[in-house]
């Protein structure tokens, strides 16, 4: 502690009022105050999961403040290593000085893709497809059984790898035979009406197309607590688009989401998400990257679902009398949950529930980072990052995994063969 507390300046910069966007009239981002705050302690580099296993990756400090400084000269381009950042955003959490690292990375990646990447390259086409998973899923889920059959075919997988650079090592996530939205419609919408307890559910792509049971659990749990739940029209949160530098795609999706959700905020709804990357995106990345009417309000009123209940309901009390069948879980906190301060809530909450054994499998990143681990050239890095988590899962008592993030759950299943559940599903079992 002694070294860290040595006063280095009489006037530490504090950036409470720092508004990174729209400083320049032409709309170009000015991140200089953020860069100036970096005093090169390198703690971000020591928490970067990619830098830990990939010697060629220069780490978040370079990708952020250093690259920003270099780029002030017109003839310096964005370094192509930016495409190796997986957008886990752990560096944000590590920085003791409030440098907006992930915002810098997102901005640099967007510029790299716009200006330096050939739109005809295999990499660009592949990334565009991966980033727009929601569109793909919409088409695929129209004929789920056929899609599952085709995508699960090993020949198709090898073709995907050869033609597109999508790894053949992974099994494509199966589409549900009935999407969450279809279930919701057939059910006839909300079963509970309330004037003052209202939430709008941002289900995201994955719980709609792939794991509708998570969305159903969300609805049942919230209705159990007396909430009126609505399911607004929505598009992808934008997370995979940020991670692939497709900022224009992300902004189009964001404008739909912000507009739909803004309307509901006015009617007294708060926004809740069951995927921690979705809530991260709405809360932090939207206002950092875009200027849309109502964007700040949406960010301020978006919550992760469990977090929302913990703040507004006596969840501990409700769970005190609950009991479920004996079961043990190996819990992994997604990076994007970590960055929102939600990494311990599931373990904390279920630790006291009769019949449940929850074990946190440590603080390593799962390594898949959305679309990252699907890229042929990143697959190995992705699995190396995940190694720690796999080992801890095997060591834990539970044979069922638990996490809030859809792609973390893919990686957990891929690395261990375990079935993976969402905390909402356990909450549903305990309370409904």
């Amino acid at each position, binding site marked *: *502690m*002694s*070294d*860290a*507390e*040595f*006063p*280095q300046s*009489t*006037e*530490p910069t*504090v950036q409470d009022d720092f508004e990174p966007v729209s400083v320049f009239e032409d709309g170009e981002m000015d991140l200089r105050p953020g860069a100036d705050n970096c005093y090169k*302690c*390198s*703690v971000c*580099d*020591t*928490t970067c999961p990619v830098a*830990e296993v990939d*010697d*060629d990756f*220069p*780490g978040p400090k*370079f990708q952020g403040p250093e690259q920003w400084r270099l780029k002030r000269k017109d003839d310096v381009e964005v370094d192509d290593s930016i495409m190796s950042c997986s957008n886990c955003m752990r560096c944000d*959490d*590590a*920085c*003791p000085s409030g440098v907006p690292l992930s915002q810098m990375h997102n901005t640099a990646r967007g510029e790299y893709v716009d200006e330096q990447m050939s739109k005809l390259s295999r990499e660009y086409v592949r990334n565009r497809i991966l980033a727009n998973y929601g569109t793909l899923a919409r088409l695929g889920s129209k004929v789920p059984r056929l899609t599952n059959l085709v995508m699960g075919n090993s020949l198709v997988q090898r073709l995907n790898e050869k033609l597109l650079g999508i790894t053949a090592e992974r099994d494509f996530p199966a589409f549900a035979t009935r999407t969450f939205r279809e279930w919701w419609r057939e059910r006839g919408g909300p079963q509970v009406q309330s004037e003052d307890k209202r939430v709008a559910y941002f289900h995201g792509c994955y719980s709609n197309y792939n794991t509708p049971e998570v969305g159903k659990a969300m609805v049942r749990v919230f209705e159990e607590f007396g909430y009126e739940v609505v399911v607004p029209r929505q598009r992808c949160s934008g997370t995979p688009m940020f991670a692939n530098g497709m900022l224009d795609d992300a902004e189009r999706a964001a404008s739909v989401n912000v507009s739909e959700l803004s309307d509901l905020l006015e009617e007294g709804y708060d926004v809740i998400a069951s995927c921690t990357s979705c809530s991260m995106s709405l*809360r*932090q990345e939207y206002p950092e990257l875009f200027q849309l009417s109502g964007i*700040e309000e949406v*960010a*301020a*009123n978006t*919550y992760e679902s469990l*977090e929302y209940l*913990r*703040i*507004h*309901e*006596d969840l501990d*009390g409700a769970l005190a009398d609950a009991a479920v069948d004996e079961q043990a879980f190996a819990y992994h906190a997604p990076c994007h949950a*970590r*960055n*929102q*301060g*939600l*990494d*311990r809530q599931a373990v*904390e909450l279920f630790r006291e529930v009769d019949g449940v054994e929850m074990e946190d499998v440590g603080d390593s990143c799962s390594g898949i980072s959305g679309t990252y681990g699907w890229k042929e050239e990143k697959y190995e890095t992705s699995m190396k990052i995940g190694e720690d988590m796999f080992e801890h899962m095997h060591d834990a008592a539970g044979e069922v995994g638990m996490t809030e993030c859809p792609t973390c759950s893919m990686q957990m299943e891929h690395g261990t063969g375990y079935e993976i559940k969402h905390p909402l599903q356990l909450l549903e079992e305990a309370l409904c």
Partner: protein
Amino acid sequence: MPIRDDVVVIGGGLAGSMAALSAAESGAGVRLISHKKSTLRQASGLIDVLGAVDGDAPIADPFAALDRLPEEHPYRVVGAEGIREGLRRFDDVVGDRYLGSHTDRNALVPTHGGTIKPTARYPVSVAPGLASAAEDTLLVGFRGLTDFDPVAAAAHLEAAGVPFDVDGAVVEFPIQFRDDARTTRFAKAIDEDQEDVRDRLAGTVAAGIDGHDRVGFPAMLGDDHGTAVREYLEDRLGVAVFQIPTGPPSLLGMQLEDQLIDALERAEVRLSTGNPAVGYEAEDGRLTAVTVDRRGQEVPYHATEFVLATGGLVGKGIDSDRESVSEPLFGCHVPHPEDRYEWSESEAFGDHAFARFGVVPDDDLRPTDADSAVHFPNLRAAGGVLGGADVAREKSAAGVSIATGTYAGRRAGEEVAQ
């Protein structure tokens, strides 16, 4: 009722961790709130209690020097027994991974800059390098690892008058890394023995031993397998091998952070990290909740007792602008000269007023206002946020955090039990 605990500790550094452990010991339900990863990652991992008073350094026995400290020093509030209690609790946390508890006297630890730091507790791996042992020493650094210059460090140590010969040598690390690789990268390679690096490292260094009694490396000799690495090198080199604490990112600091988190988990302290505490709620003069900003909305964390351990100027527990100095969370009084030019001295290492800025505790570590009245009867402060100590000059930062954290946490727990 939403989120509620008996004691809420704000700040995840050494002071906050010790406060939470101490409160949990009393049986209270404790939550620790911290914004970012703690500054322990940048700390040396050494535990200093008191190394200098009024420019008189090094102090041999910190306890014997306590009454030479100014009246407003936090040590004067907790007293010698408070410091001992804190150290006992710290010893429980680190177990056999630290040494120094056998004596009140300071150990003298060589730092990566070649200075000597008077220290009360130090990691086992640092012990063979103590400057009080008259053994000829070789310091080894690696080309490309700019964090540690062994030749300059050796020259500094010689100039400091250590009772032995010191030499420095820069060698090639057996594995070629990128130019700006971190110490953690080297540490990992050694820890996992990548590409037979331990054997090759021993081979490189063996040639230069040449009559030295011990060899010091920057603190990167492995992580999980640190003990095995040192044993292997000692065996191969035939001399004692020790680690020299480095600047950030500091492996010894990170290892201490891990040990504290393990201890907090064992004590069932609830940890909430990632969002800053920004405000509070109070009723009838007592604090009822601390509010945490989760990007736009403030979430209250209710409790009956609170400990403020947010750090000093660098840890951002104390804030300043060109006009004034403040404690931003509760608005506690922070005395400072009105004229900004009196905040500092012209000499870089002078007796700066700013170094002692912080809240003013009463005799129970409760922050007081300008009229010496407590702000809240159920709020105590610990660590760098407390004023009155110049921890950098005194070499007392860790000790102040441990002693006041332990005291504040214990008192919070006792109040809950009432």
